[in-house]
């Protein structure tokens, strides 16, 4: 009668994967979906933007400065006759490089130090966590300023300046995950049943760590974008003529009383982008960690 025990696959519903469930929950949050669409558009623009830009970012047209939007310059021109549309396309590329590059740098440092602290324990753990506490207490913006003054205003110096000051949160998260998972009942039970370390890592550790990491990274990206633009406010953004959203907003601010339209497109697009990343991060948090957070 062994045949009876084997149910036909048609009767038993296939268990949904947790990612599919997460996507179900995510897609119910309209703001998160709208944010995701904008983020995808932003990413695509950043990738292909420089090729479709009608002008180079450094091209100046001194006969057409401070133009409003027209067919020739669909978003107008600034005080040096830079085409605003092209500048925004290049800024998007720059923002993406910073957002993903700096976040990756922070993430890698955070994962290494967090794993090290969590696995080693003892005095190593204490020293690393002291460093984390320090990075938390110290406003990283000032470290960014000093680092950019020292290493210059190019893409890589700015990327690393933001990256190496922003890892404390990741380190703390990874360490706490390591500590809680190592002593968790499910890992204990799997080990008692004779599961191999690879199996434990794949089935229990990885999914748990993954969801937390995805959420942390999603919140990290808008933070790094803001940090980059904040450098421009005090004149330490990427060196001209390289445009960035921070530089464009700062430049618009300098000319705002006479030429307010310089502000509309850069500030609007930048604000929408930050908002979208925030909505995506929040949606991910709710979809992946339905219990945690608020």
């Amino acid at each position, binding site marked *: 009668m062994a045949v009876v025990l084997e149910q036909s696959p048609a009767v038993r519903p296939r268990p949904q994967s947790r990612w599919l469930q997460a996507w179900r929950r995510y897609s119910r949050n309209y703001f998160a979906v709208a944010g995701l669409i904008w983020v995808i558009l932003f990413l695509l623009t950043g990738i292909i933007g420089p090729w479709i830009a009608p002008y180079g970012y450094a091209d100046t047209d001194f006969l057409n400065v401070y133009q409003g939007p027209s067919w020739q310059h669909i978003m107008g021109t600034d005080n040096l006759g830079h085409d605003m549309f092209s500048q925004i396309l290049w800024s998007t590329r720059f923002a993406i490089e910073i957002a993903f590059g700096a976040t990756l740098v922070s993430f890698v440092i955070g994962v290494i130090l967090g794993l090290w602290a969590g696995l080693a324990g003892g005095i190593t753990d204490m020293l690393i966590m002291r460093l984390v506490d*320090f990075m938390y207490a110290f406003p990283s913006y000032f470290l960014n300023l000093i680092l950019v*003054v*020292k290493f210059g205003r190019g893409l890589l110096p700015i990327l690393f300046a933001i990256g190496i000051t922003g890892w404390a949160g990741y380190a703390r998260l990874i360490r706490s995950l390591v500590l809680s998972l190592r002593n968790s009942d499910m890992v204990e039970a799997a080990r008692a049943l004779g599961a191999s370390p690879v199996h434990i890592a794949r089935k229990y550790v990885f999914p748990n760590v993954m969801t937390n990491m995805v959420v942390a990274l999603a919140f990290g990206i808008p933070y790094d974008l803001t940090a980059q*633009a*904040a450098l421009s406010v005090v004149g330490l953004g990427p060196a001209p003529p390289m445009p960035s959203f921070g530089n464009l907003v700062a430049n618009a601010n300098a000319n705002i*009383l006479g030429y307010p339209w310089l*502000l509309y497109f850069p500030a609007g697009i930048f*604000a929408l982008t930050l908002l979208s990343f925030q909505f995506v991060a929040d949606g991910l948090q709710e979809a992946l960690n339905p219990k945690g957070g608020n």
Partner: protein
Amino acid sequence: MAIVRFLIKRIVAIILTMSGVIAVAYVMMYYAPGSFFSSSQIASALGQLAVQDPHAYQVTLKMFEERYGLDKPLWEQVLKYIWYSLTFNFGNSYENPNVSIISQLKVALPISLELAFGSVVVALIIGLPLGIIAALKRNSWLDYTLSTLSMTGQAIPAFVLAVLFILLFGVVWPGTLPINGWGTFGNVVLPVLSLAAPNIGTFARFVRGSLIEVLRQDYIRTAQAKGVPYWRMIFRHAIRNSLTALITVVGPTFAFTVVGTVWVEDIFGIPGLGKMLASAFGNLDYPLAITSVYLLCMLVMVTNLIVDLCYAWLDPRVKLE
């Protein structure tokens, strides 16, 4: 006694941390390319001198270096700055050689403090009721609207908001509120609002979360069961407990706001510490830059210390260690 030991430990830690920060910052600036004498107005005047009278140029440079101790070995200069930070005597800046930094700070620091404290207080006054309403009406359209607005406030940085305010009150409705300068009440409104907006979102969301958490607790059900009137239960039992945790958020929020003053002061032309810092970094005026970074960081760290003390005072379960 525990509190005295805790205080001594924390203050020593702050002093050591700040000394380390000053040392690192000074060394990095020392080796950074460019200097004040090549990047500011002085440079053009000196440049002329260099062409007209190379000898006098060298003498002038030497005079400057001697005056600021730049001819001494690096470790001596670093030690000097650490000593400055401990004695609160910061010497003179490059930009204004005749005015001591400390007398500039006496004007600038209160302005920044007023902005930072003012915006945190405003954010609390607006954010708390919003969070409470959202929690009591949770999962209603009101809650969703408030939560979305809070998130919007958190996502838009203060400097973008500040520029948008300038657009609104400088171009769309000119003359309603001043957009530049300092001294009247009107000058305070826009900078405080742009700094407060992200904090309103932070506070509202935090209060909503913690109040929902508290409302699930057993003692709330007990209060309901024994017939405590609804509003009395909300205010006396629920909100009081959810507010204790809020203290832990106020600290980081304040730190965030102190950093924000740098941008907002620069944009609204307010002669505070942040504006000082921005122009000091722009001119590579290192004494001024290091002093302003030092003070802003001190502000953050001392606030964190006060927050820890308040938390231990409000919640007897917390031990100071």
